[in-house]
């Protein structure tokens, strides 16, 4: 097939319209969410004292951090799906959840505490956190990568890592309602480690899956 023939063929296919990437990503995440929720309700479930926990600002702050991570990672993912985009202009968005976390830690430091710092940091659920967040993230990550395949990222591994961040953010939001450790120190340690695992897996998977 010579190039003129190829051009004529592409022009004949001009009527085809791909789904916008935002929509493709949303649909793929919606399709993957039930799998993650199934893992959550089968293995973990919401903590029994959730109604009282909601009055604890540090319980609520966990959701602020994880939702900020999910939202900023979604925005950065969509940005990175364009071939000429780089992390340079939008990457700082990912610092928003870290900023909230730092503010929460300093807030907690200023309040009188019954338990010592290391006890709060180590908590009771570190292992559950480190396994549940990656396990619940995985279906979301597969979905996110599937949706983002519509895009054309310049650096597929970076785009995959950000897809990992977004799935970890969503999974951690659900997990936070199970976990009884509300100290921002616990969140900063174990949630961050779990998120880093998912981001690395995302980078590895994205490297192949997001090439165009």
């Amino acid at each position, binding site marked *: *097939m*010579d*190039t003129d*023939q*190829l*051009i*004529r*063929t*592409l*022009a*004949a*296919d*001009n*009527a*085809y*319209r*791909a*789904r*916008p*990437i935002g929509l493709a990503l949303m649909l793929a995440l919606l399709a993957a969410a039930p799998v993650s929720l199934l893992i959550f309700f089968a293995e973990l479930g919401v903590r029994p004292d959730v109604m009282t926990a909601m009055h604890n600002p540090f319980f609520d702050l966990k959701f602020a951090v994880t939702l900020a991570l999910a939202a900023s990672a979604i925005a950065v993912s969509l940005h990175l*799906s*364009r*071939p*000429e985009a780089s992390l340079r202009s939008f990457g700082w968005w990912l610092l928003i959840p870290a900023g909230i976390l730092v503010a929460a830690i300093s807030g907690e430091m200023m309040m009188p505490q019954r338990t010592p710092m290391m006890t709060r940091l180590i908590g009771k659920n570190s292992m559950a956190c480190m396994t549940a967040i990656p396990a619940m993230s995985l279906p979301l990550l597969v979905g996110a990568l599937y949706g983002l395949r*519509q*895009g*054309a990222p*310049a650096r597929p591994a970076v785009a995959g890592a950000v897809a990992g961040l977004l799935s970890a953010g969503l999974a951690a939001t659900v997990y936070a309602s199970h976990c009884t450790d509300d100290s921002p120190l616990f969140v900063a340690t174990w949630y961050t480690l779990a998120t880093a695992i998912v981001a690395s897996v995302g980078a590895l998977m994205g490297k192949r899956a997001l*090439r*165009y």
Partner: protein
Amino acid sequence: MREREDEWTDLMRSAISGDDAAYHRLLKAITPVLRAAARRGLARAGQPVDQSEDIVQDILLAVHLKRQTWDTNAPFAPWLFAIARNKLIDALRRRGKRIFVNIDDFAETLPGETPEPTASPGEVTAQLQALPPRQRDVLQSIAVDSTSIKDTAAKFSMTEGAVRVALHRGLASLTEKLRDR
């Protein structure tokens, strides 16, 4: 050069709003620029320049299949050159060469510089044979025999819609095969 790039942006906008002729003109207009840049890249990597046409076709397919990632309010050229650069680097890497490809390689092509294709490109043609029969027949009919979508539909007793679907799927799987080869 600015003028040329503004013209591309206008053509792409018309193409996206459904003007097939504008799209054809745009692809025709960018091809010599892509060809010149592909040659320059190959030459710098010490590779025979007669392989440039495969790279040009690779870029054109990517432009086509990823055009939804172009923001219609942004200029077209930076988007195009980002895709072209990515594909050129990929092609050189596949040949075992790691070189730095500068965006300016594309931007600096003079409008007067319009090299003709040299060797006939083989990669797309080879992968075409590996497609599922229905996609291959439709692509063959539209691309090689230059039959219209309407006549292709009549020839294979398909609906026009089915021809369009087979055409698009064929182009998409062709690109996938080229990427994973």
